[in-house]
């Protein structure tokens, strides 16, 4: 089945997927930075400085290195970052296609790859200035190599694939360290490979070489990073960031301890709605129907064999990490598990179409009809989101532009939360106060140079104040100037921001 002619044909299919993936991602790259973190990356292209959160710890060295290379060519921060996402978002289709091919064969591989090609979250993240698309490429590549290693019979071949997996994983962690739960899958496959060996020498090799390659890869990007900023500064910033992430603004289980709500947010909002396109509305309902039936058929028909275990070891550690330590308000954190879920859905979908063919008759084209409807609905939904992002500015950018148009910087102070970072990038001349502990009087005295004629407050800052039990004095007269919004399915955070003016 896998002779040289077949190999060429399968590669041509993969190439076609990658090229179409790149074109769909490149053509609709985001034109604006809409969130705090992507501004960190953009500012880091000019000056890599963890102390200034350019970018924030752990520093994303591989992502920044590659984007900086592109920045030297395209000379524009947003273009460089989104181009990185588009390139690696498209490239992900290559290891993904081959992984599914080796797991379930050609047709499921093509179908699952098409699902990934037009998946709403993956498509969106491959057009934004975030490292997720690049990191997922390396995670999927390591998944592919791990699967091949586990399936290989010859210890030499196993070793070759384990080294490939370790290299990909090591680089992937340099892109986004938060994808470290993939280490569980890596360790599990290595142990499984060792178990299959009889000779002790082979067992030792299968443990030592992958470990050394992983350690060496991590050492390269870590050493490069430390050489730029110094070991103590690196450690200090890392600890500060971890403390802030877990105890203050990171949206972890420590600051949002309601586990029921967190499960609901993860599985309903992040995975089903943002990640897979389910939900209300005609298209989303149609997709919910296909997704639910596919998962059901997978559960009923699939045996709990090595492949199912492989997917489980990929999925479960990362979901546990997300539920405990990631901000569930950002659906992008589940991007690493989208490929796994799509493999499960495509496998279940084939069981579903088999059942439909049995029901309607083998000669019927019901499987093609169902596949076409599923893919068409997914494409329409995702394209609508991508196009909305392409033509609509994020709410925070609209806010910055409104302030720039209406208020001179020397007269104005703005109390805001995450929008501060957008001012840092698009209008750094404005004085912004984002410390929720400060009173208005104190904030002005501390941060402003002179007496402002205009004090602006965003609804995000109002929410912070409310959380601290602070209400505005009657004399401060908040007056609503304007509300800014964007589609929350395109960007979940800060989708509605109101701007108020206070008496100076």
């Amino acid at each position: 089945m896998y002779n040289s002619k077949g190999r060429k044909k399968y590669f041509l299919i993969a190439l076609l997927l990658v090229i179409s993936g790149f074109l769909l991602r490149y053509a609709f790259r985001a034109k604006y930075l809409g969130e705090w973190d992507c501004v960190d990356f953009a500012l880091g292209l000019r000056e890599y400085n963890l102390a200034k959160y350019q970018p924030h710890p752990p520093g994303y060295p591989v992502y920044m290195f590659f984007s900086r290379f592109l920045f030297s060519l395209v000379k524009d921060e947003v273009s460089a970052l989104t181009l990185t996402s588009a390139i690696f978002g498209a490239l992900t289709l290559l290891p993904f296609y081959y992984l599914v091919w080796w797991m379930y064969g050609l047709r499921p591989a093509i179908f699952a790859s098409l699902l990934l090609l037009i998946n709403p979250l993956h498509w969106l993240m491959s057009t934004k200035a975030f490292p997720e698309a690049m990191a997922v490429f390396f995670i999927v590549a390591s998944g592919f190599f791990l699967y091949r290693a586990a399936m290989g019979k010859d210890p030499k071949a196993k070793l070759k694939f384990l080294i490939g997996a370790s290299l990909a994983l090591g680089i992937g962690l340099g892109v986004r360290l938060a994808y470290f739960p993939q280490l569980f899958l890596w360790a599990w496959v290595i142990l499984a490979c060792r178990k299959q060996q009889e000779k002790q020498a082979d067992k030792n090799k299968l443990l030592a070489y992958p470990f050394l390659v992983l350690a060496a890869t991590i050492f390269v990007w870590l050493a490069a990073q430390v050489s730029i900023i110094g070991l103590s500064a690196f450690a200090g910033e890392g600890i500060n960031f971890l403390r802030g992430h877990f105890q203050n603004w990171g949206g972890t289980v420590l600051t949002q301890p309601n586990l029921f709500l967190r499960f609901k947010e993860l599985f309903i909002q992040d995975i089903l709605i943002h990640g897979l396109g389910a939900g209300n509305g005609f298209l989303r309902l149609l997709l919910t129907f296909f997704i639910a039936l596919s998962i059901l058929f997978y559960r009923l028909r699939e045996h709990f064999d090595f492949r199912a275990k492989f997917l489980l070891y990929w999925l479960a550690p990362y979901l546990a990490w997300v539920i405990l330590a990631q901000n569930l308000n950002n659906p992008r954190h589940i991007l690493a598990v989208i490929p796994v879920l799509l493999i499960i859905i495509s496998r279940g979908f084939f069981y579903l179409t088999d059942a439909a063919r049995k029901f309607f008759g083998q000669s019927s084209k019901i499987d093609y009809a169902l596949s076409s409807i599923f893919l068409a609905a997914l494409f329409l939904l995702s394209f609508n989101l991508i196009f909305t992002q392409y033509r609509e500015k994020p709410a925070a950018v609209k806010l910055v532009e409104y302030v720039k148009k209406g208020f001179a910087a020397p007269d104005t102070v703005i109390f805001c939360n995450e929008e501060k970072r957008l001012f840092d990038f698009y209008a750094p001349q404005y004085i912004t106060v984002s410390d929720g502990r400060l009173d208005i009087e104190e904030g002005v005295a501390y941060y402003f140079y002179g007496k402002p004629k205009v004090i602006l407050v965003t609804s995000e800052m109002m929410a912070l104040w409310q959380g601290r039990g602070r209400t505005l004095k009657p004399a401060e007269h908040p007056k609503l100037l304007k509300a800014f919004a964007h589609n929350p399915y395109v960007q979940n955070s800060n989708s509605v921001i109101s701007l108020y003016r206070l008496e100076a």
Partner: protein
Amino acid sequence: MPKIRNVIPAIVLCLLLTFNVSEVLGYGYGVRGKDTLVAVYEDTAGFLEKNDYAAIQRAVEEIEVPLVNYHKYYRIDLKPLFLDAIEKHDKKAVLANMEKLIYFAIREKIYWNKKDNLEKPIAAKARLKVILQYYELFKPQIKNYDEKNHSAFNSEIVELLVGMNDSLGEVGSFGYNAKPANPEEFIRLSGRLEDVLAIIFPHFAEGRKAVIVTH
């Protein structure tokens, strides 16, 4: 007796749920509260070491608010001086202008405290906090000056700052341990601080003489 591995998840869950939950103060490094002038001063020193004048130009664009407002208050426009120094790649002039700007900011914070007659204690403390940040920037040069001239201005400045802090008074806890502010003492000490800085940094002379006008 249950196996320890079966109990661990339950223990972890209990610890998580009973952990002291912190409040959200704001996102990222913005909550650390570094003054923009301090940040730009430190950045500029770094950029000067690398001879990166394009980065200095960008940094100067970030401080439009103090440049424009202090031009009004002191009737001294530092922006063209900055641009000229950047164009000529004159390190000394860039640094001197940055120092002048910081000195303007110190005088401005003192001015508002005097103008408020220290009646807004939270704002007065906040201004003094920023002055302390500015002092930290000048500290190495002040110590250097002391060493060269066998003077003790650094210790005097520290005493002045401590005295200024005391002169702001204390709100106390529910009135207990409250101390009234002493505006006269604040004026005396802050005036001396402005003078001492102008002695150590002779290029502050013009800024010291300028009378601040804010209306």
